[in-house]
Structure formats: C-alpha cells, structure tokens
C-alpha cells in the first residue's frame, strides 16, 4: 500500500499538466472554465492539438496511435485534462467507434478510418438508440437489406448527440429479422451522412439548446464494404463499445474543478450577514460534496490501479453511477448559489448578473442527461446487482 505516486508517475503527471496548460489554446480552455458553449471548430482544434502531441487516443492499440500506458497513467491523463479545462477528445471518435474499428474492423477499414478518426478529420455520430429502443437497445428496428454490393437502410435513430456536425455515423441495424434472438440479427454499419435519403432533424431540449437529433434513413444505399466485422455480429461490437463508454464516463476532475469554482462564487454572493460561503448550511453542503468527490476519486484510483490484469475491477460500475450523481449535484449547487439571479438566463453579456449564474439553470437542466446516457443509472444498478451481487 502506498499513498504517493511513484517518481515515474509524478513525472508523467507533470508532463501531462505542462502539455495541457501550454499547448491547448487558452481561449478554448477559458470557455470550458466559464461553462461557455464550444463551437465545432473549438472541439476540432483542441483534438488536433492533442493528436499532434500523441495524446488524443491513448487507449487505442499502439500501432494506431495509442499509448502503452498503465491504467493509472490513463487515469492521470484524464484527470489532468479535466483540471486544465481541456475539452476531452470527441467521445464518439476516441472512446466509441475508434476502439471498435481497431478491434474488429478489416485492415482496409482500419487504414481508411482510424487516422482520420483520431485527428477528428471525420466527425462521428452515434446511431444506436431508436424511439422504441432506449435501454432495451436490442429491440432496434432500423433495417439493412442486402442489395448487390450495397445495404439499403430504412428506419430512424434518435438522441444523436451533435449529429448536426456529423460526417459519418456508426449505426446498429437489423440485418436478420428472423434470427432466433433479437441480439443475433444486428450488424454495425458505417454510413456517410451525406448519402441521399439520410436526414438529420434537431430535437430542442429543456435547456433551450440543440444538442441532440433524430436521424432518418429512407432507402439509404450503403456500400457493403462499410460493414464492421461480420454480418449479424454487431451486438458483440456494441457491448464492447458500451463497456468502454462506461469506464471513461466518471467526470471526477471536472466536478472537482467546478466545485472549487462554486466556492469562489459563494464567496462573492452577499447575504444579510456576510457571504454565502459563511452560511453553515452552504459550507456543510460543499464539504459533503467535497468528501463524496474524494471518495469517488479514490474509488476511481482503486479501479485504475487494479485493472492491470485486463479484468475490470468490480467497483468500476460504481464510477458511472456515482460520478453522474455528483456531477448533477454540483450543477444543482450552482443553481442554488445563483438564487434569484438564476432567471437571468436570457440576459446578454452587458448584464450585471455574472455569466455563471445566468447559465446555471440551463446547465442544471442539461445535466439531467448524465444519469440517462451511457447506460442509465438504472441500467448500472442492474449491472451491479446482476454481475457483482449475483442478484
């Protein structure tokens, strides 16, 4: 047992910190710090800086730009990135389809897509969920029917995050409607989003923003070579992808940073007897959140240090669940600190109400998503009960 990082890991942490705080444009990091919306160009630019430094896709196989890091080093990379307000590499590229192509794609597909995916030359969208297939993903109904050298795709996907920027979409489609189990008739297809018959329609969310979309497919012809791996084996690839998605989803570093910012704001809010941070109830709430985040971070470190033999630590399932609970609790704290200023969400930059207070309610509403995406927290409980507790 040891509290401190090894000298090697300290050097690694310093190297990450140095890179993130000097190489990624300050203007982009300021936007993240101030909780301002990033443009597509911001996200692309940040990822290209990371990729140029070899830090965009460390989880991939080394031959495709990955790093032969320990799990602890990957954890440090992720934490330092969040603390430095660096936008994470686009999850659809770096954490989702990239590792799937690297693991299951043909050599041709790897060469065609992986370098462009790492560099965000291709912006990937995710086409998994459907109106009738949410947590029950295997019930999906979008069909792909083989017609010569093509598949003809028909159906509808939904909740496609940032689909308005998407160049390509990785989809789960039903290729065998007669399979004995619904999971057995699913394939993974890569689809160029400029193909005729493909339409992206925005969904407005409760925060007033446009983050997710519906994607419609009407007789969309997709070259058969865009199939990932084997036909009807898509469920295996999807499970692999979703497993990866869970691991990276506990946002400890960004919640810590936001909580520290919340304290600074609380120090500036006037009450009849001082500032909000002097209020014992506010201080206790902050202290409890700090302690909960510490326990989460330590659990993440335990998981990172323990997964070296390739098997995920049983506690890894806790990370997504508790990580999003705390992420939401921090956004809730911002709303409460803002008080009545919270309603100034439509005010422009000339307003006397600080920017953090103006965006606090939309962000609070927006982050209700965190316990729904990436396998809802109810799905996580199902996993814990089933795979860990044997229930």
């Amino acid at each position, binding site marked *: *047992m040891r509290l401190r990082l090894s000298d090697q890991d300290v050097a690694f942490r310093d190297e990450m910190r140095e890179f993130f705080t000097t190489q990624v444009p300050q203007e982009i990091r300021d936007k993240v710090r101030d909780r301002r919306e990033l443009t597509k160009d911001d996200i692309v630019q940040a990822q290209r800086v990371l990729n140029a430094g070899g830090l965009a896709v460390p989880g991939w196989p080394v031959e495709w730009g990955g790093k032969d890091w320990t799990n602890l080093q990957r954890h440090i990379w992720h934490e330092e990135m969040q603390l430095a307000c660096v936008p994470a590499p686009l999850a659809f590229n770096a954490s989702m389809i990239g590792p799937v192509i690297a693991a299951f794609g043909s050599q041709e597909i790897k060469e065609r897509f992986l370098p462009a995916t790492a560099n965000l030359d291709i912006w990937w969208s995710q086409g998994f969920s459907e109106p009738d297939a949410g947590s029950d993903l295997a019930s999906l109904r979008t069909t792909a029917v083989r017609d010569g050298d093509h598949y003809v795709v028909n159906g509808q996907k939904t909740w496609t995050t940032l689909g308005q920027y998407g160049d390509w979409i990785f989809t789960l489609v039903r290729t065998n409607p007669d399979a004995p189990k619904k999971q057995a008739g699913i394939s993974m297809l890569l689809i160029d989003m400029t193909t005729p018959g493909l339409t992206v329609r925005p969904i407005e969310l409760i925060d007033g923003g446009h983050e997710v979309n519906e994607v419609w497919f009407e007789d969309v012809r997709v070259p058969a070579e865009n199939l990932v791996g084997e036909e009807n084996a898509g469920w295996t690839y999807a499970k692999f992808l979703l497993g990866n998605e869970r691991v990276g989803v506990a946002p400890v570093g960004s919640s810590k940073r936001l909580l520290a910012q919340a304290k600074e704001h609380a120090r500036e809010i006037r009450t009849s007897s001082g500032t909000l941070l002097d209020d014992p109830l506010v*201080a206790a709430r*902050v202290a409890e959140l*700090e*302690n909960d985040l510490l326990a989460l971070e330590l659990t993440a470190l335990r998981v990172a*240090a323990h997964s070296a033999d390739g098997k995920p630590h049983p506690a890894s399932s*806790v990370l997504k669940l508790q990580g999003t609970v705390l992420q939401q609790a921090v956004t809730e704290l911002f709303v409460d600190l803002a008080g009545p200023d919270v309603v100034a969400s439509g005010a422009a930059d000339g307003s006397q109400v600080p920017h953090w207070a103006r965006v606090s309610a939309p962000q609070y509403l927006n982050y209700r998503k965190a316990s729904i995406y990436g396998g809802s927290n109810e799905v996580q409980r199902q996993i*814990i*009960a089933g795979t860990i507790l*044997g229930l």
Partner: protein
Amino acid sequence: MDFTLDSEQLALRDAVRGLLGKAYGSIDARRDATASDPGFDEKTWSRLADMGVLALPFAEEDGGVGAGPAEVMVVAEEVGRVLAPEPFVEAVVLAGGLVAAQGTAEQRAELIGGLAAGESLLALAHLEPGRHWSAGAPDVTATRSGDGWTLDGVKEPVLHGARADVLLVTAAVEGRTALFVVRADAGGLERTGYRTFDGSRAAHVRFISTPAEPLGEPGADATAALEAALAAARVAYAHESVGAMATALETTSEYLRTRKQFGVPLKTFQALTFRAADMYVSLELARSAAAWATLVLADEPERAPEAARRAAFQVSKAGRHVGQEAIQLHGGIGMTAEYSVGHYTARLTAIDHLLGDGSDHLRHLAASVSDHGVVEPMP
C-alpha cells in the same frame, strides 16, 4: 498510489480470518460470547495475543511488532466481518496508542507489554455522561496530593471499563486536558459495568479521590496525543465498519437469492435488487475513503486528523444506509436477535457514535471549507 496488500499483509489477513472465523463462524457463537461478562471471549483474546495481533502497532522497543496502519486496517476489517467482540480497536489502537504516544519509557514497557501479551486490558475513560463528543473532559478533575495525584468525578460510558485492568483517564488540570493511569485495584474507584445494545460492555466509573499516576510528564497537555490516537482509532473503526458492512451486504444478497415469496426468489423484484446495488455503492465509496485514510496515517501523519474525519464521515453515511437497508430487505427476520443482520446494524450504530458521529465530522470539515480550492488525495 497503491491500495494492494503485500504478501505479508495478506498472510496476516488470512491468519486473523482463520482465527476469528473459527471463533465466530456463526452469529450464535458471537451471541454466546457476548451473553456473559466480560462480553468477549478471553481465550480468543489470548490467541490474538499469541499471534502478535495485540502487539501490531507498537514499537519493538516497547514490546510491539513495529507494524503500521495497513496491518491495523487488515485486522480491524476482519474483526468487523464476523463482528468479533474482542476490543481490538478500543484497547490496542485507542488506549494502547495513547500510551505509545504519551507514556514514559517505563510506562510503555509495562502497559504495552502487558497489553500485547494479553495479560492486561487497557481502556480509555474519556467520555462524560450527557456530553456530546468533545476533545475536552472538564467533569473529572485531577489534583496534586503530596507526591501524587488524585482524581474526582464520573466517566461514562467507559467501554470495557469494568473488565479493564488499567484505565487511562482524561482529566482537567488547570484548564488543560491531561492523561492519568488508574489501576483496577486503586482505592476510591467505583465501577458499575453493563451490557451495551451492540453486545459489548461499558461502565459507569466514579473516581473519589482515586490515586492516579500521570501518563508521561505530570500534568502535561494531552490534546495532541489524544488527537493522534483518535485519528488512528477513527480510521481503524472505519475499517471495522467496512468489514461489518461487507458481511451485512453479503448476507442480504444471499437472502434475496434464496428467500421465496409469491413463488419466486426475492431477487426477482427490482425494487429490492436496486436497493442492494445502492448498498454496494455506499460500501465501496466507504472502503476507498477508509483505505486512503490508512495510507495518510502511514505517510502523511500531519494530515491524519482530517483524513480520519473524512473517512469516518463517509463510513457514517454508509453504515447507516447499509445497516438500515440490510434489515429492511430481510423483512421481519432481520428484526430478530437470532438472525445476524440486526447485530451488524447495532454494531455499526455504536461505532458511528463513539468517537464523533457523521454530523460532528461534517461540522469540522465545513469549518475548513474555505481553506482550500480542491481536496487532493495525494501530497
């Protein structure tokens, strides 16, 4: 940062698990041991002494083994797993830790030597009736009398106070809190023992001009020694609680798998399995916080009081959650004394209140919330 046990620590765990598992393989054995005074099994206590467990955290020159917080953690967790009633944390970590921190070389050799051999039981008499947890102890006063000192006042509840061979007593001396050693055969010492709700024993202890020997330098302020020993004891209790919570959850899961109602196992009902999943989340967060506090005790002692409170606060929340749900998910059987889970909940409840409860820890953490930006686990 590394949370893994080395081979010697694993061997210690297996040895202690073997010994305590044999003694307390069922809740009946524990009920038998706690049915009569002194509320634990003297033979098991001796066997722990023979194994070197009671000597673990003490320096070799004091008759100890020279092991560290990690070894204490390993033992405390095993104690919690089977709810062993032997006072490992109370006597070794807390009372013994105070002697190690504050005692003279002679006192350390005698008191720690006797404790480590299982021949002399130490107990800390600090709590005073009707007072919430406090580092001070104004109701028992120490007075110089000739060459020596005498104590007057009441301590209660004193864990294992009636059985103890030696009491370490906090007392007020000119506004300071000092520590004194009182032998069981001292004059003017009245001890009335009783059973506690978790099967342990405590006592009302009255001092009437009771002769006492200062621990360490006469009349010296013991606040720092108390703070250090308390931090170690809070962390050890956190591990005892983690062990107890782990068993309570295992027992509950097994019950959900096997108990049938409406013709199906209870695990068929998501309303129950989701709650068990939440218990697991609480347990693992508490386990992480406790293990971290042990690392801090070993490597960054100046931060130990804060780390101990952080762990104790996390464990306080988890212990209530897991303990309450363990009973509820069992239903009526969980309420009975012949079944195990209620005893686990009782023990978790006792531990939660002995050295400051969750609210007390939170109050301290809240008071220092403006002193830092983020809480960093590593130096």
